[in-house]
C-alpha cells in the first residue's frame, strides 16, 4: 500500500502514466477533503448506479399500467406513489436516471469538444480568424440560452434528440471563450515554438499541445454547467418539447402531474426532487473541482 503511494507521489515519475496517475491521486485526495465535493460524488455515483442497474433496483416496470392502482399516495408498496395510469413513480424516477444521464453526456460530448476546438483555433491563430470566430461566439453568448433552445426545438420539432441538439447549440460558446482565454496564456511560450521548429503542423500543435492544456478548466466548467443543462432539458420536457411520453423523463413527468397537483401532490413533486438532487450533486462536485483544479480561485471559495 505504502509502496503504491510512494510510486504515485514520486517527484520524478518515470513514465507519463505514472505522472498522470499521481496527479489524479493528488486531486482525489484534495477532493476528499472537501465535504461538499464528497456529497456531490456520492450523489452522482447513485445516479450512475441507478441508471446502470435500473431493472434490478426498480420494483415495478416503468411502463406497466395498472388502472386499478392509479394515483395512490406514497406507501410501503409504492415509495413515491403511483401516477394517473397506475405506474409506480419510484420505478419511473429510477429509469429516468438513464434519460438524464444520456442527455447530459450527449450534450457534453457534442458541445465541449466543439467549443474547445473553436476557442483553441481562435486563440492559437489570432488575427482575423480570432475576430470572426469570437464574434460569432459572442453573438451566441449574449443570447438567452433557454429561449434560444426553445426556438430551435420549435423549428426542429419536439423530441429528445432535437432537445439535445438545441441545448448543445446553446452551450458551446462558453467553452469556446474559456479555451481561447487559456490558449492565449501560452500561445507564445517556448514549448509551442519548439514544437513548431521540430516541424509539427498547426493541427498537430493544437490537438497534441494546446487542447490538453485547456481540458482541466473545461472539466470544471462543464461540471458546473451540468445543473443548467439538466434544468433546461427538464424545462423542455415540461413544456412538452423534449422527451415524449411514455418515456419516464423527469420534466415530462412533472408536466403530467401538474393536472393533479392540488389533490395528488406526489405525482409532480417526486420527479422534481430527483432533478434537484442530481443538479445539486453536479454543483457540489463542480465547486469542489474548481477549488482543486483552479488554484487562482482556490483561496477565495
Amino acid at each position, binding site marked *: 500500500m505504502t509502496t503504491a503511494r510512494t510510486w504515485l507521489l514520486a517527484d520524478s515519475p518515470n513514465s507519463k502514466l505514472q505522472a498522470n496517475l499521481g496527479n489524479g491521486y493528488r486531486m482525489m485526495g484534495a477532493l476528499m477533503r472537501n465535504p*461538499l465535493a464528497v456529497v456531490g460524488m456520492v450523489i452522482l455515483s447513485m445516479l450512475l448506479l441507478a441508471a446502470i442497474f435500473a431493472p434490478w433496483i426498480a420494483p415495478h416496470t416503468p411502463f406497466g399500467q395498472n388502472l386499478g392502482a392509479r394515483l395512490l399516495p406514497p406507501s410501503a408498496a409504492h415509495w413515491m406513489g403511483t401516477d394517473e395510469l397506475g405506474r409506480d413513480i419510484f420505478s419511473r424516477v429510477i429509469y429516468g436516471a438513464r434519460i438524464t444521464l444520456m442527455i447530459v453526456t450527449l450534450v457534453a460530448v457534442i458541445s465541449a469538444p466543439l467549443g474547445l476546438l473553436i476557442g483553441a483555433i481562435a486563440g492559437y491563430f489570432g488575427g482575423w480568424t480570432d475576430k470572426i470566430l469570437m*464574434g*460569432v461566439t*459572442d*453573438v*451566441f453568448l*449574449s*443570447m*438567452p*440560452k*433557454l*429561449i*434560444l433552445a*426553445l*426556438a*430551435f*426545438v*420549435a*423549428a*426542429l*420539432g419536439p423530441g429528445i434528440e432535437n432537445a439535445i441538439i438545441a441545448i448543445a447549440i446553446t452551450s458551446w460558446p462558453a467553452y469556446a471563450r474559456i479555451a481561447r482565454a487559456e490558449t492565449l496564456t501560452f500561445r507564445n511560450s517556448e514549448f509551442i515554438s519548439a514544437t513548431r521548429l521540430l516541424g509539427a503542423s498547426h493541427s498537430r500543435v493544437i490537438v497534441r499541445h494546446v487542447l490538453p492544456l485547456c481540458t482541466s478548466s473545461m472539466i470544471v466548467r462543464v461540471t458546473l454547467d451540468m*445543473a*443548467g443543462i439538466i*434544468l433546461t432539458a*427538464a*424545462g423542455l420536457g*415540461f*413544456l*412538452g*418539447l423534449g422527451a415524449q411520453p411514455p418515456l419516464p423523463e423527469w*420534466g415530462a413527468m*412533472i408536466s403530467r402531474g*401538474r393536472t393533479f*397537483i*392540488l389533490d395528488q*401532490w406526489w405525482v*409532480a*413533486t417526486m420527479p*422534481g426532487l430527483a*432533478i*434537484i438532487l442530481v*443538479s*445539486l450533486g*453536479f*454543483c*457540489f462536485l463542480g*465547486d469542489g473541482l474548481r477549488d482543486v483544479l483552479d488554484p487562482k480561485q482556490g483561496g*477565495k*471559495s
Partner: protein
Amino acid sequence: MSTDGTKSRRLKTTLGALGGFVVVTLLTFVGLMAITFFIGRVIPIDPVLSVVGDRATQEQYDAAKVAMGLDRPLIVQFLSYVGDVFQGDLGRSVSTNRPVADDLARVFPATLEMATLGIAIGVGLGVPMGVWAAARKGTWVDQVIRVFALLGYSVPAFWLGLVGLVLFYATLGWVAGPGRVDIFYEGLVEPRTGLMLVDAALAGDWQVFWNALDHLILPATILGFFSLAYIARMTRSFMLDQLSQEYITTARVKGVSEWRVIWVHGFRPIRVPLITVIGLSYAALLEGSVMIETVFSWPGIGNYLTVALLNADMNAVLGATLVIGAVFILINKLSDVLYRVLDPRSR
C-alpha cells in the same frame, strides 16, 4: 487647466464607451436576427406548406412561395427581414390573427412587472447574504448560504412554482392563485402603463392594487430566488477579494468597528462590479420568467411564447425570441458600458 484636461479625458472615455456600445450592440442585434432568420427560414419545416396546407396544388404552392418572397436569394430575404424588423414588423400571429409586434407590446409589461419585483427581492436579500457569508467565511453561516445559493442553480423553476402554488395558495391560503388579478377585478383600471400595480395606483383603486400585489408576490419571490442565488455568490466572491486587501487590515488595526470595516471600507468598492452582476441577473430573469409564467398563467411574454410554441405559431415564436433576445442583449451591454463609465480605474 489640469481639471479641464481631466474633464475632457473623462468625457472622451465616456463617449468612446458609448460609441463602442452602440456599434457592438447593433452588430449583436444583426447576429440575433441572423439566428432567428436561420431558425425560421432555413431549418426543415417548410414555411410555404404551413400557410397553404398540404392539399394545395403545385400552382397554388408556387404562387404562395412567390407571394411570400421565398423565391428570392437567401441574402435578399435576410436583408428584407432585417428591414421589416427595424420597422417593427414581426409578421402576423397565426393563432391570435394580429400583428406579433402588437401582441408583444401588450404582454411585455406583465413580464416587466414580475421581473422588476423579482430583481428587487433578489438584490434586497442576495447582497446582504453575500456580504454576511464573506464576513463569516468558513463558518456554518457561510456553508448554509453556499448551499442555499447552489439550490438556486439546481431547482427547476416550474417545479418550485407548482410546489409554491400547492403550499402557499391551496394549502395555507396566504397568497392569491394564478393570473394577474381576481376575475372580478379584471378590466377595472384603465391600462395606462400596462403595469398593473402602477395603473391601479394611478387610478387610486387600492383594492385592485392589493389584489394585484397578492397575485404577484409568489411568482416574483420565486423568480427573485434565482437571481438571489447568483447575486449572493458574486457578492461573496467580490467581498472576499476586498476583505483580503491590506487597507482592510490597516482599518482593523486602527480600531475601526467591524461593521464599518465591512460596509464602508469593504462594500463601497464593490458597488460598481455589482451593478454588472445585477444587470446580468435582471436580463436572466426576463428569460427565467418563461417557465414561471407558464405555471402561474401569467399573461406575459413567456406565456405568449410557450402558447405559440404549442400551436407551432412560428412568427410569434420568433418574434418573442427576438424581443427577449434584444432586451437581454441591451441590458447586458448597458451594464457593461455603465461599469466602464462608473469605475474610476477605467478613467
